[in-house]
Structures are given as C-alpha cells and as structure tokens.
C-alpha cells in the first residue's frame, strides 16, 4: 500500500496555475526529494497533502495514509515541517514541544529526549525568541518526530542548518525510513539530496518534469560524461591527437562522451599505457541534470 498517492493534482490561485496534473506515489519507507525553482509549486503541493487547503475540483485524487488529506486519520499520522518554521517567541523550546506532545496525546516527558535528539538539549529552557534560524529549524524537526508519523512532509528542512547539522539531519531521516516512515522533502540544494533520497521528483512551473531515481534520471537525460586525462607534459600533444579531445593547461585533455560510449572511451585511454598519469570520470552534475529537466518543456 502506498503512503501517499497523488493523481492529477491541480491548483490555481486566480490566474496562477500553481500545479498542473501532478501525479506520483510515495511508498512506505521511501525518501522522496521534491525539487524545483522558487515558485515551482513545492510548498503548494505539500499544503494540499496536509489538507491546509484543497486541490482544485478537477484533481484526480489525493490519498494520504489511505485517508483524505486533512482528515483526523491523516493528521494523526502525518508530520509537517513548514518552510521557515515559526514558534511563539515567548515560549521555551521545552514548553513548545510539550504543547505539541499534548496535542498528539503523547506523554510530555518525551520533550527533553526529543530536544536532545535534535541537539537542543542545552537550550531547551531558553525562549525560542532568542534562537538562531538553525535552532528554530531544529525545534521544527523535533516536533515532526513526535509520535512515529507514517509520513513526514518537510518543506526545505535543511535551510538554515550548517553542513554538520545537515549530515545529522539526513542520518536521522535514514533511521526514520528504516523504521518504515515515508519522507517527502523539498529542497533547492541539490547536492545534499543526492545520496540521501531514494527518488527525485522535479517540478517546473507547477508541472512534474521528472520522477525517478537519480541513476535513472542520469540515464534518461543522456547528458554527456566528461573524462579528464592527465598525461606527461611531453606526450600530451600525442595523447590529444590520439583521443581527439580538447587540450588545456599543459598536461590535461578533456573528452566528452555519451553514457554508452563511456567504457569504449576508457578502453582507448587505457590502451595508451604508460604516458597516462591519471584519468577522472565526471558524471553530469546534479545542477546539469536539474537544469536539463526543469528547462525541458512538459510532455
């Protein structure tokens, strides 16, 4: 059974078509990254999933943990971290988390442990008004962990976190996913979702333009792979002539080839033997991939 199922979701705000026929599913334990430029429709889609507002009438369907979005059953099992999460500045993190625990019917004694888990144990009794953006983001994470949710909807969860905190955050997601929770997170920082998500969905102007694992997206985009060959200074001209690449900075030759030609090209390099000092294979970067998909006109 899928945790989240979206069928032809549409949403307009006046003349703005925020979402157009967006369909995809999220399975239990799956981590899906929702990518897209600002205004692509990520937050709008998340708010529909949470039932904060309804999709347009011409939407095919939205099923969240087998229930309607925003229904009592869905709300009990779905956690949310809003973009730029905010709390009342007069409350301490501990008081705020205890409040959320009460709302979910969980023992308030868990508050300290939750705050400890997101690295806020030391600041738990300070007012949130004194917190940095990263610390508020951690309070937001702590509340999203309450009560073993089956689906976590996280809107730009790592914005405001430093690199170390980001790594800790993704490690936490791994644990949740291993326990069977599904995660839908949005981001425009591409590199960080690379190793940490099972699937990538790209929205462009409200339309879904990609929905696959990173490896499959790479294959289907068929973007050229770069191969950089380093050779001895005195044989570099011969190497460049032999391989037909472009030379630069005295001892390097750059080649570009398709995915299917990669092994053949590497074979040619290897055949040159001793004169080759080093070979580096650079797959298309996520940025390349992302611009490839988000600029492609929707089919």
């Amino acid at each position, binding site marked *: 059974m899928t945790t989240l199922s979206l069928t032809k979701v549409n949403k307009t705000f006046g003349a703005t078509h925020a979402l157009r026929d967006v369909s995809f599913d999220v399975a239990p334990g799956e981590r899906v990254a929702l990518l897209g430029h600002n205004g692509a429709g990520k937050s709008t889609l998340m*708010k529909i999933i949470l039932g904060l507002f309804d999709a347009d009438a011409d939407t095919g369907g939205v099923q969240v943990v087998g229930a309607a979005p925003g229904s009592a059953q869905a709300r009990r099992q779905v956690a*949310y971290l809003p973009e730029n999460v905010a709390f009342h500045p007069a409350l301490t993190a501990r008081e705020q988390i205890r409040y959320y625990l009460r709302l979910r019917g969980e023992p308030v004694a868990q508050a300290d442990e939750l705050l400890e888990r997101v690295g806020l144990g030391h600041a738990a009794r300070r007012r949130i008004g004194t917190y940095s953006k990263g610390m508020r983001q951690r309070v937001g994470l702590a509340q999203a962990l309450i009560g073993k949710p089956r689906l976590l909807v996280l809107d730009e969860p790592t914005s405001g976190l430093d690199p170390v905190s980001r790594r800790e955050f993704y490690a936490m997601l791994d644990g949740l996913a291993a326990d069977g929770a599904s995660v839908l997170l949005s981001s425009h920082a591409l590199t960080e979702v690379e190793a940490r998500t099972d699937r990538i969905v790209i929205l462009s102007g409200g339309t879904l333009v990609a929905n696959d694992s990173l490896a499959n997206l790479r294959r289907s985009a068929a973007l050229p792979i770069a191969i950089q060959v380093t050779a001895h200074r005195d044989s570099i001209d011969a190497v460049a002539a032999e391989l037909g690449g472009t030379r630069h900075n005295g001892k390097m030759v750059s080649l570009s080839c398709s995915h299917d030609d990669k092994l053949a090209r590497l074979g040619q390099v290897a055949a040159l033997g001793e004169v080759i000092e080093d070979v580096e294979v650079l797959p298309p970067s996520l940025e390349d991939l992302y611009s490839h998909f988000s600029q492609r006109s929707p089919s």
Partner: protein
Amino acid sequence: MTGLFTPILAGAGAEFRIALRNRWVVIAVGVMALFATVLSATGSAPTGELGADRLSVTVASLTSLAVYLVPLVALLMSFDAVAGELERGTLSLVLTYPLARVELLLGKFLAHLLILALALAVGYAIAAGAALWADPRAAAGLPALWRLFWTSELLGATFIAIGYALSALARRPGAAAGLVIGLWLALIVLYDLGLLAAVVADSGGRFTTQVFPWMLIGNPADAFRLYNLAASEATAAAAGIGGAANAIPMSHALISILLWPLAALGFATLAFRKVIP
C-alpha cells in the same frame, strides 16, 4: 490517548503562559485594580439617605466602569489571536495537528477568560474590601458584587469571542486592532448616544416604547448594565436609570447576557474556518 479536552487544555496552558510572559496578565489585573482603587477612594459620598449600603453603591459605580473597561480589555487580549498566528506563521503548523479549529479557539478562550477572571477578582475584591472596611452594613451588597462578577465575566467572554472573529476576518494584526477599537467605539460609546438621540427625537412615541427596549437588551453591554442595575432596586435608584430599566423584564436582559457569548463564539468559529494559512 488524547482525552476529549486535552487539546483545549493544552492550548489554554500555552496561551496563559504566553500572556504571563507578555505581561498581559499583569496589565489586565493592574488596570482593574487601579480603577477599583480609584473608584473606592473617590466614591465616598454619604449614602445613608438612600438607604443603600456602601458596597451596593460601589457596585453601581463599578457597573458603569465595567461596561467600558471589560469589553476594552477583552478586545485588546483577543484581537491578535488569529491574525497574530497567521502573521508569525505559527498557524499553518498547528492546523496540521489532530485538533479541530474550534478546539484551538476554545483553548485561547479558556486562557483569556481565566486572565479576565483574575483581573475582575482582584479589582472587585479591592472595592469590596474598601467598602466593608468603611461600612459594616456593606456585607448586604455582596450578592450584588457576585452578580457583577459573573456578568462581567460573561460580558468579557462575548467581547473576547468577537475579538477572535474580527481577528480572523482581518487576517492582519494591525487591521484587527483597528477593527476592535472601531467596534468598541460603535457598540459601547456611540450606540448609547445614538439611542439617546433617537429617544429624544421620538419624544415618547412608538420607537421609545416598542423598539428602544429591544435595542437596549440586544446590545450585550447595555444588557449587562440593565441587569446589574435593575437587579438591585437601591442601586437602580442611585443610578437614576430606573425608568428605562423597569420597562424591560430582567429575564430578557439575562438571556441576552447568556446568549451573546455563544453567538459570538459561533461567529468566531465560522470566521476562523475561512482562514487559509
């Protein structure tokens, strides 16, 4: 598991704590205490010839004061309730939690009612203390004071809920503040002036006998004043509005006082339902 009232109590607890930190509790209690003290100190005219005890007279002055002050304090506590959360961005998160919107409102309502009750209790206790100290017969006025207390609380409840409704309609704290001040002026100050002008112009005609009494009890603040003053003959005489008060059965005023909080809360819930975070 969540009990029936858990979300409401959780909300009330958080809201009360916020009001403590924002000094709202101190401000509300301080304002009521200050005005009660001033009233007790100045309202020391000899009252023996009216046959009323000191506390009953104090209750009459407190009633006239509460008509202005209680709605004002209630509206100032409540105007930020929805608009403030919307602007801070805290609303979208809490609305994904398993609680109904009306429960969210009821939590705030409970906290604000408690703060108001504290303020009223302190203010009225000061007034009662001063009266009892000055006049041994003042204990006779205690029932009137108790009546003033719970009707003040109901009057406050009405305006707290109206504050929520305006907060939800305005969506922005600045606009909500403007709306509640406008409403206070219209309902508490201008309404009575308008009625008075109409009664004078009508000079005892159909408006004065048929419409005016209903317009009076239709306004929660006027119903509150009528009920408290009419409930005690002595204070009604002292305040000199016996005529108007006698034209209206007290039960009607009481019904108005009791129904207004429910109606206002219903209105607030409907307005809040329309808010999209």
